[in-house]
Each structure stands twice: as C-alpha cells, then as structure tokens.
C-alpha cells in the first residue's frame, strides 16, 4: 500500500462538552491510528464517524385536511449518513391526509435502511 492511499480526518467529538479534536488516519481497509481523544467513548465516536456515520433525519411531509400544510416527521432510528438525500427524495414524494397521530408510520423501512418515517405531530381533520 502506498502512502497516498492513507486518508486523514479531524473529527470534533460531540460526546461530551470537552469537544476534543481527534485526528484519524485511515485507508479503505479501516482505521490505522487515532490521536487526540481523552476517553473510550470519544474513540468509539470517531471510529463510528469514519466507518459508518449515522444521523437522525427530521423533516416534514405534505398533509391535506389539517390545520397546516405540512406534518413534521423523523426517522425512527438513525440512518446511514450517505442515505440522507435518498431518504429526503422519498419524503418529498409523500402526501398524507389528516387525521394523523404522533407516532404513526408514514413510510415503512425507508430506502431499505430498516428505519421507518414517523409522524412527530398530531393533526385532527379540519375542513
């Protein structure tokens, strides 16, 4: 393996208020070295950020017959960061109808992530 294939990334840890900057050296096979964290949880966070970063997505879907025109939603579990815009494409397409209860599943297993898109607000039917 040549040196050029080694990638470097500075990760600001958000696990605790200390906010360590962790320098990670990695290549396509995985992490080579990490420096700068002050605890195990920080190491784990940095490892996850390099190997498989995930995020919760919160957005809104169009809704008819409700007080407002959009209903807020979230992913039921964190999804892979690389899938964020794929998930958003699915969210754009949806149009629901009131009534909706907070916790209702709007899209099941969105983009094969295993996570559902869930309503986070309750709307009664309004004429």
């Amino acid at each position, binding site marked *: 393996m040549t040196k050029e294939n080694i990638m470097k990334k500075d990760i600001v840890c*958000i696990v605790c208020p200390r*906010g360590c900057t962790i320098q990670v050296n990695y290549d396509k096979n995985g992490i080579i070295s990490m420096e700068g964290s002050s605890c195990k949880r920080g190491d784990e966070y940095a490892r996850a950020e390099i190997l498989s970063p995930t995020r919760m997505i*919160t*957005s*809104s879907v169009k809704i008819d017959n409700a007080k*407002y025109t959009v209903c*807020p939603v979230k992913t039921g579990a964190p999804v892979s960061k690389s899938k964020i815009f794929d998930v958003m494409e699915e969210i754009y397409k949806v149009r629901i109808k009131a009534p909706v209860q*907070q916790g209702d599943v709007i899209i099941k297993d969105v983009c094969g992530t295993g996570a559902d898109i869930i309503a986070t607000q309750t709307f009664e039917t309004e004429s």
Partner: protein
Amino acid sequence: MAAALQAYELGVKDIVILERDNSLGGILNQCIHNGFGLHVFKEELTGPEYALRFSEKIKETNITVMLDTMVIGAEKDKTLYAVNPEYGFMVIKAKAVILAMGCRERPRGALRIPGSNCAGVFTAGTAQRFVNIEGILPGKKVVILGSGDIGLIMARRMTLEGIKVMGVYEIMEYPGGLTRNIVQCLDDYDIPLHLSETVVKIHGKGRITGVTTAKVDSNMKPIKGTEQYVECDTLLLSVGLIPENELSEQMGVGMYQVTGGPFVDQDLETDTEGVFACGNVLHVHDLVDYVTMEGQRAAMSAKAYLDKTLTEKKSAQKIAVVAGNGLRYVLPQHIYLKDTEEKIKIFFRSRARFREVYVRASVGDNVLTRRKLLRLIPSEMESVDIKMRDLLNTGSETNGIGDLVIEVEQ
C-alpha cells in the same frame, strides 16, 4: 405548561394558561429537529413530541387553557386584561402569576445593517416557521448571519429542502451555537462557517440580490479591503434572542439589563410579590429541559406563596448574588436568608471561553463551593449549588452576611 402541571399536582385548584397562539407548545412546534428531552425524559425527542408530552397531560387535568388569547395589560396587583375571539375582553384577577412569555429574535433593525430595505431578510425563527409549519420555502440561495443554534439548525433544514446555503457569517471569533450543531448542521453538509466576518451591506431593489461581507478586527470593526460580494435571494438573521417583558414591566417588575429579564430571588419571585418568572422570559436558555425544570420550580414557589409560607421572607436579610471575574450574569440576583436546609442553584454564563477552570462561590474570604469545569463557554449555561446553611455560617454576630460572589478563579 410545566409550571401549570406542577401547580396542579401540588393541589392548586384554579389554574389558567393564557396563550396567544392557536395551540400549546410555543416555539417547540416549529422546532421539528431532535435533541430535546435528554434530561427530563432521558430520551431524544423532537420539539413537537416534547410539547405533546405536556399538552396531552394537561388534557387530563381541569387546567383551563385559553388559546388565541392576547394579554394586553397587566397590573401590579396581579389583575390581567386579555382578549380572545370567544369571550372578548376579560379581566382576570389572579392570586399568583407565573410569567412564561418566552423571548423573541433580534431583528435587522437592532443590527443597523446598511443597505436597501428590501424583501427577503428574515429572522431564522421566521424562516423556521415558514418551512416547518406553513410549508413555504423562503428562497433558493441563502446567507445566514450569526451562528446561533436556530440559524445552524435552519442551515441544515434548508439544505435538506434543496435550498443552497452560501455560508454562515459570525462576527465573533467563535461560534454562537452548540458544538454538536456546528458538526451536524454545517460540517455534515459542507456549509462554510466564516468566523470574525459579518454582513456590512444588503443589496437589492424589491427583493434582496446579495450582501457584502467583510472580515472584522478585534474590536469587531469591518476591515477595509476584505469586502466580498455574495449573491443570495434570502438573508437569515440568527443574532440573539430578547426576553419578551412588556407585561412584566407593567406589573412593576424590576428588570436586569444583562439578561433582559426580571430580577428574581431564589424562589424565582420578582420584585412584585406573587409574580414569578421562568423560561426564556427570565433569561435565554440553551436547553428546553432547563426551561421545564425552571417552570416547575416557579410553580412550587407560587404554591408556597398561595399557602402564605413565602410571605415572611421579605423581612429577612437580602443579599446580592454578584457575577464576578469572567462571568456575564448570574441567576438569581438576590437571596433572602432563611433558617432552612434548602439548596440554592445559581445559574451563570461566562463572558469568554475558558478551558479547565474552577468556578468559585464565596462570601468575603469564605469559599462556599468550587466547581471544576472542563469547558466554560458563553453559549452553554452552567450552575453551582449553594447550601443555605453554609451561607448563614459565613455571618458573625458583629457583621451581617456579605454579597455572594460567583467567579472564575484566576
């Protein structure tokens, strides 16, 4: 809502919530992102979910909720004047009042940015309401001035909705919002954060077409020659929040210039007897969980006031709590001494950024407590606990008890 529920649980019979919006929950309803509730519910909720936990509980009580109701006047004797479409004009005579009106955003006028007076300049919260409640996008190409949390959250939200966020400009040399928001709202989407830079001019006729940005020196004055033109059709302002205290002032409540909220004692009681304050109307919080807890405390004090157990305190000695070295403000600002075992939580914000410091609470030469903080920054509120007993012990027979000073150790 937290205050009303707490008062209800303590046995207060006749509670009314006066709300000018058409639903309960205030700004939480438009904060559709997650991160709320880690302290109160030990799980991560979105704003609407957090609000619903309380409004659902309120439905199970006999608390009167008046929506679409604007309080248009208030008096020192706790008479409130309100209007709504159902009852028209109302006079409400309260025995105790809990102020929980929240805050509003600093607008363009407070910044005096030169340039044309065109459409397309919004506060971040207004844009948030447009996108998350009304389902309307404010523009296509956005510049954000100020790195407060709402601005950062909106940078991500608008990016997800296909809006191009050109950059976030922060006049200070450090960001105003929480680190996790810098990482997850800006870095994740490669949105540039320009520190020590600001907007010096707004361009556009009818609608904004761009802004001129400039770097600033250590006195926050724009540096000549660093100006850059940035094209945009929308400018969002995320430049601070102001507690909304017009009604408090009508009630004769003394105001603390630094927080923009009322002066309070350890019971969150204002200068006006029986009037308590909590949440962002008292001082701007960074976590809703702390707002909830403060509301609950205000309700406990209001209940004690109704039970007449608070009335004695004002004949006791009152000492000042002072923000010493490194701190911008403390809360409460004064303490009535009582011969009890109570613990007093003193909240504070720093003036600058510190790493690995001790914050000390002392009266004269008596150090009551020291707390080590790995990091102390203006955007994150911190606290120390004081025992009333320790405070009383600092006095001697000849001298009374001096001011309580909270400060960063040199």
